[in-house]
């Protein structure tokens, strides 16, 4: 059976034009998708049933027992952490936040090791952003800063920027200029009209220099700034100033390098400065397909986008204090529930070690690095393949993912709903 307009649950692009052929519960082929999408739909390493660690070995257990034990672990903890959420749909995320409030837990999503600093900067100076449709139809200057879309978001360029024509950009190839800023040559930098190579950790100074030039204080810019020549800085500023509509996209090269949120703040202030002369926007290249959704859900329920601490009964937010990596590094948590993400693979070693030393429960369809740190793993359906639910694209547009077939696995809402009921019963 051929299913059209399938939404891809892999990266923040959330492409909604895939054509997937299925037979029973098997995906035969994926059209329009990138390699990452094909791999996600055809990959098949699902855990068959819940597992539980006893002694040094895994044993098979039932959903009933696994869910009951999960609730007991969380209720017993003085500082439980509910981490992940970016790989599931918003209905499940909503349940997670309500459960965190009941438990007095800390709830955090993967922005904490990703675009969290971007949100901190936005809280300081705002976000001059737009949807990807605006970029596609209007932008004649595209800047990728600290991002490598060809490898990380393979269809970003062909759906929204460099390789696609828009309503006001009739011939993208001729009319769109692409600037790539990175610390090394990448596949993306090869197709750039202007590649700016910055010494690692030097982005803040380069952004400052560009702001000075746009503001008319270019006389003060020295011969080189963080490895970038004065001439190139002026050239880049000129390209931006002569744009009709410019769009800056930035990735983890900017958020997770030295300066962190201050880099993003500087980039936003450059965007504001450019807006005195022409139209410019700035947007983060979000990673997980529904990480934006987790920020939305957390914010509409608690007022804060990630790292929300309910231990005092009210929501408190302070990255650096209530963020997962910091909590785990300081060994604060005494229990952890991981939903739809893989901190075992992405967190620093000290954090993974602490996860292994406390009761950690994972709710995830697949066996991954976190499985090896967990006491219990409960497999669920994969949203966008055998479960459906709402997700938010990287520009904040909600898109409902589709269910291609039924496998009999419960979805995240079914499992979390039962844990929530047990917690609610105990808390009264």
């Amino acid at each position, binding site marked *: 059976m051929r299913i059209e307009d399938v939404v891809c649950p892999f990266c923040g692009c959330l492409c909604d034009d895939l054509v997937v052929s299925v037979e029973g519960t098997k995906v035969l082929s994926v059209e329009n998708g990138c390699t990452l999408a094909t791999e996600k739909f055809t990959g098949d390493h699902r855990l068959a049933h819940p597992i539980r660690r006893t002694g040094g070995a895994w044993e098979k257990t039932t959903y009933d027992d696994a869910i009951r034990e999960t609730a007991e672990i969380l209720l017993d903890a*003085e500082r439980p952490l509910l981490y992940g959420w970016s790989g599931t749909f918003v209905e499940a995320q909503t349940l997670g936040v309500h459960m965190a409030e009941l438990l007095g837990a800390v709830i955090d999503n993967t922005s904490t090791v990703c675009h969290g600093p971007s949100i901190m900067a936005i809280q300081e100076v705002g976000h001059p952003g737009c949807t990807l449709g605006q970029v596609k139809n209007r932008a004649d200057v595209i800047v990728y800063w600290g991002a490598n879309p060809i490898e990380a978001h393979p269809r970003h360029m062909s759906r929204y920027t460099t390789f696609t024509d828009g309503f006001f950009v009739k011939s993208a190839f001729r009319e769109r200029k692409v600037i790539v800023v990175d610390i090394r040559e990448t596949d993306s930098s090869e197709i750039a009209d202007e590649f700016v190579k910055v010494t690692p950790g030097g982005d803040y100074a380069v952004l400052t220099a560009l702001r000075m030039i746009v503001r008319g204080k270019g006389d003060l810019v020295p011969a080189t700034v963080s490895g970038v020549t004065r001439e190139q800085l002026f050239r880049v500023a000129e390209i931006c100033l002569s744009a009709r509509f410019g769009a800056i996209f930035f990735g983890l090269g900017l958020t997770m390098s030295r300066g962190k949120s201050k880099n993003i703040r500087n980039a936003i202030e450059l965007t504001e400065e450019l807006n005195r002369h022409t139209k410019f926007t700035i947007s983060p290249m979000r990673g997980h397909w529904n990480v934006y959704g987790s920020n939305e859900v957390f914010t509409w329920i608690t007022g804060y986008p990630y790292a929300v601490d309910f231990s005092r009964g009210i929501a408190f937010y302070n990255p650096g204090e209530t963020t997962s990596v910091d909590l785990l590094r300081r060994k604060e948590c005494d229990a952890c529930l991981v939903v739809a993400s893989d901190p075992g693979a992405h967190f620093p070693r000290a954090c993974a070690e602490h996860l292994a030393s406390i009761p950690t429960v994972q709710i995830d369809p697949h066996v991954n690095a976190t499985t090896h740190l967990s006491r219990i793993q409960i497999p669920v359906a994969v949203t966008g393949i055998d479960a459906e639910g709402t997700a938010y694209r990287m520009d904040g547009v909600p898109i409902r993912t589709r269910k291609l077939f039924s496998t009999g696995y419960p979805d995240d809402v079914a499992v979390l709903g039962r844990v929530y009921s047990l917690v609610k019963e105990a808390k009264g």
Partner: protein
Amino acid sequence: MRVILKTRPRKKPHVPIEAEGIIPQNFLRKNDLTVYEGNRERNLEDLFFVTVEGPAVSPDQVEIILTGDTGRIKRVGEYMNAGRIIIEGDIGMHCGNFMSAGEIIIRGNADAWLGREMRGGRILCEGTAGDYCGAGYRGEKRGMRGGTIEVMGNAGDFVAEYLSGGEVIIHGNCGDLPGVEMRGGTLVIGGNCSRPCGNMTGGTCMVIGDPGELLPSFRRNGSTEVEFGGKKFRMAVFRGDVANRGKGTLLVKEEAIISRSGRDERL
């Protein structure tokens, strides 16, 4: 009056304690103070051996002494307005938040956000301080507004972010971006740092050690002589951050500038 709070051994010593109730005015008369251990509310006596010596009629006669395993206790001295707190060891985050008067002395190290949004009074940290010492809360437009923080050791990143008034003195080194977004007050760094005063709009920052790389957005504006720790230093004066129409002052040791002049054509 002297109140001695000695920590009791805990089953989970890493779980943080939030104790904004530990301020001098709360000990004037006997009341049931509670603190939070993780998500559990506890009586002060459950976590501390409490000894009270002598009387007091006003909060400025109260001295609190914290001893034992105090490195995980957060928010001690929050909103304090009189008296004195002496911490014999390390202290957790947010010590002296919003304090307006009185004195806090820390014999060990302080964790992040020491004296966050402080309005007045004095904090002395004899060890090292963490990140965001004398800074503001996330998204807040003003950090510390008055009073003095003195750190004898080093401090972390983003020291005195959004500093708006008062004085922060770090005798050791600072991390990255001290005085970032600074808009008033004085920041003195006795040691080294990197990228001081990014985006500053006002106030004065003085770096006695090596300032590391300077941002390109500071305009040289003569030199001056200052005194620090009983010694005189010849300082280069910069105005900035010009990317932000800033009118702040950054003083950097002249020798540090000369040794770097090969790399920086402004000098």
